[in-house]
């Protein structure tokens, strides 16, 4: 009996309304790594995310890594593009400046390519974290 009452109470709870912050924080966090945390006054976390993701991406560029553009070809190229896209503003800037052409002559360039993909994927995680803070799921 008590269980059915609890179940009814849970079912009657309205869905948590989406606040403005739950939209803005992930969006700005995608554009500038760590900014989604900073806008919610998590300064140190945001700064650490910015430095970590930014350094990884820039090091990838300096290692002559290759940046993937939107494509419909090989599955690995598509996945590379999705990973790179996660870096948001860093990715857009790189494309705009026509950087990240990749250098086949350097073996280390392949590490650089992976660094940039991982930076983007890590930023996706940071964006999800900023969203969880915005909806109150995390402190």
């Amino acid at each position: 009996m008590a269980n059915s009452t609890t179940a009814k109470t849970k079912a009657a709870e309205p869905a948590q309304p989406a606040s403005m912050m739950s939209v803005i924080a992930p969006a700005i966090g995608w554009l500038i790594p760590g900014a989604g945390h900073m806008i919610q006054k998590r300064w140190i976390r945001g700064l650490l995310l910015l430095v970590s993701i930014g350094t990884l991406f820039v090091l990838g560029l300096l290692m002559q890594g290759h940046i993937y553009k939107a494509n419909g070809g090989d599955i690995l190229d598509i996945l590379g593009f999705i990973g790179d896209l996660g870096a948001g503003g860093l990715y857009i800037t790189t494309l705009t400046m026509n950087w990240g052409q990749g250098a086949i002559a350097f073996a280390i360039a392949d590490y650089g390519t992976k660094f940039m993909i991982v930076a983007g994927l890590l930023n996706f995680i940071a964006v999800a974290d900023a969203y969880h803070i915005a909806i109150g799921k995390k402190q």
Partner: protein
Amino acid sequence: MTVQLSHFSAAFVFALFASIVFGITHRETTRDMVRYGLYCFAMFLGGVLAAGWAMWLVRR
């Protein structure tokens, strides 16, 4: 400008920054974040060293 990193230094840099992000995003409290970040860092570098020695053994 080109940066040339050795395999180990590339793995070290990768482990360092990935661990920081994992620590911040996967735990709630500051203490847990630091502990989890250090754990991830140790696992990343430990994995590199273990894989390196495993390949050395296979090669012999």
